[in-house]
């Protein structure tokens, strides 16, 4: 789950990472007349370049800045709220982050002498990438390397880096990023921004006041059923018994000129429960699917469960349905579906993909 800056800053405070004083727009104290910076709370990146961050010198200009931000969209996303922070008087901007590196299979600490910019554009000699073994954690030699790069005393660096590491570890983050990291005249380090992604398989962060989220309700509803759904803009709802099979099925359908409305990976729960499977089909109907394509190959679950849900929700309707099934109890599953003329059952992957994409015109099946 991606966190808004406002949420990330709460975590920073909880882990003693210095941040500027800040308020959500509604909570901004009316008697405070200071130079502040108003920042759109959006989950998409690059809000600064799209006019989502406005610096103002007094409270009079703040109202119009807020209005400007609320009227904008950022990569199509409207601001959920606006976070207002006191301006920091800084002499330098750095960059600091911890990510998970898939190839190293470990956390990777990234530090740049240049911050406030796109990190991919920073020259290599101004950048440090330090893998942190998750079994050993942060080491003092790493602090020394960072201190040398940033030309700041190790004591100053240690506090913020070790607190960021603790946050990363304890909150089970897959990304924590501070860009920019301000250096003040007094030599202190203050986090200008907070970008945090926490693992969805782990527990959600406690003690954080979360902003409301405008989620894609279809994908959320599917996720609530225990499956994974991806919405697309074509005609066919493709439901498969696994993620890899789903990708392969999508490739095949598209290669036969079919288009997908949604791709569902059933996962482990739905396939054992007729009612959950029926709810899932209802969600796909609500999405405006024109055709249904079920492709399942079960080694552990039973084909008949899903077949029953298909029969009840789609049997005898106007929807063209193609079912390719194999595995446990496939005979019973076939029998369940055989009486409906709008449902075409096959055990061939190729046949199924052609049928759903081009239509079937034989034996009373749909065209």
């Amino acid at each position, binding site marked *: 789950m991606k966190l808004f800056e406002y949420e990330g800053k709460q975590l920073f405070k909880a882990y003693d990472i210095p941040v500027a004083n800040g308020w959500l727009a509604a909570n901004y104290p009316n008697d405070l007349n200071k130079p502040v910076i108003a920042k759109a709370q959006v989950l998409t990146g690059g809000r600064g370049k799209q006019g989502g961050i406005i610096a103002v010198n007094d409270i009079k200009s703040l109202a119009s800045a807020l209005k400007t931000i609320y009227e904008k969209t950022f990569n199509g996303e409207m601001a959920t709220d606006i976070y207002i922070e006191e301006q920091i008087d800084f002499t330098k901007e750095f960059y600091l982050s911890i990510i*998970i590196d*898939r*190839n190293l*299979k*470990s*956390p990777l600490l990234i530090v740049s002498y240049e911050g406030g910019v796109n990190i991919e554009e920073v020259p290599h000699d101004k950048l440090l990438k330090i893998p942190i*073994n*998750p*079994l050993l954690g942060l080491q003092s030699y790493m602090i020394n390397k960072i201190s040398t790069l940033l030309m700041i005393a190790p004591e100053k660096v240690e506090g913020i880096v070790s607190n960021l590491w603790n946050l990363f*570890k304890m909150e*089970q983050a*897959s990304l924590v990023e501070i860009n920019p990291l301000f250096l003040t005249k007094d030599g202190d380090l203050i986090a200008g921004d907070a970008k945090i992604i926490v*693992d969805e*398989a*782990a527990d959600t962060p406690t003690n954080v006041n979360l902003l409301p989220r405008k989620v894609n309700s279809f994908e959320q509803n599917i996720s609530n059923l225990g499956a*994974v759904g*991806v919405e*697309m803009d074509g005609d066919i709802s493709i439901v*498969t*018994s*696994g*993620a*890899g*099979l*789903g*990708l*392969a099925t*999508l*490739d*095949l359908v*598209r*290669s036969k000129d079919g288009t*997908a409305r949604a*791709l569902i*990976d059933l*996962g*482990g729960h739905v396939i054992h429960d007729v009612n959950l499977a029926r709810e899932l089909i209802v969600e796909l109907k609500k999405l405006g699917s024109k055709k249904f394509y079920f492709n399942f*190959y079960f*080694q*552990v679950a039973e084909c008949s469960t899903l077949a029953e849900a298909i029969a009840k929700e789609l049997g005898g309707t106007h929807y063209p349905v193609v079912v390719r099934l*194999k*595995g446990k109890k496939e005979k019973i599953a076939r029998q369940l579906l055989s009486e409906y003329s709008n449902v075409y059952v096959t055990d061939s*992957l*190729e046949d199924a*993909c052609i049928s759903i994409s081009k239509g079937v015109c034989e034996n009373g099946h749909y065209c």
Partner: protein
Amino acid sequence: MAIIVNEKSKILIQGITGSVGKGFAKRMLVYHSPLVAGVTPNKGGQFVHGVPVYNSVEEAVYKEYADTSLIIVPPKLVEQAALEAIDAGIKTIVVYSEGVPIHDSMRLVQYANLHRVNLFGPNSAGVVSPGKANVSDIDDSILRQGKIGVVSRSGTLTYEIVEILKKQQIGISTIVCLGGDPIVGVHQRDILELFEQDEDTDAVIYIGEIGGTDEVTVAETLKGMNKPVFAYIAGQYAPKNKRMGHAGAIINNENESASRKRELLELSGAKVVKVVTELEGLLKNYFNSQKV
């Protein structure tokens, strides 16, 4: 000899008393996979289909000489189960459980590497050498012993490969499913190297998918291989920046796309198909040319 598991393996199921664990145990017994024990804390002394259950992995290793563990426990218990297995001296581990927190995965993958343990998964469909040992969810009834090695991230897509091979009566030496998570233990490269050295394997089928940059390393390994490799990368039409079912299957940049990966593998000498069903024709041609 096949790779990773064979008739001499001594298999242990951690979580054997759960419903899925019981199902695996039953199938292993029916098809004579060398299952020797199960482990569920506090259930030691019980039997599952006649297989002894122990309280700890250490006990199962001591009494039954278990050397291969299949872990089927709830996702948040996986880390402890795997660490216990590694500390008890188990050298091959399949983590079948799905939804393991990524920080847990990082720690256990690093710990397995330190102890030179082959760890498959999390979220792996397992490893099977047909006719010898089956530590996977693929049903033995559709498997046939032979000379083709299969390495894949995905379990469900592997069933399709098995189907294609079955139709053409082509047998399999070993199938290895690495797991669909972003962080998994054993790398494709290691499996390709094992297949290259294995005298029971003549050719290899490689199944990849979008996300990550594993194929960069795989391409390097392929250049050093003499055995033919047939490959498919799933997700050619997947939209960008969307997680496609597998937590690992997401295109973050162009290098993680199916077309870039396909190109890398082709340049290294693999025969790469665009859709999975094309493997059928490719394999047919290969086997016909072998007969001549």
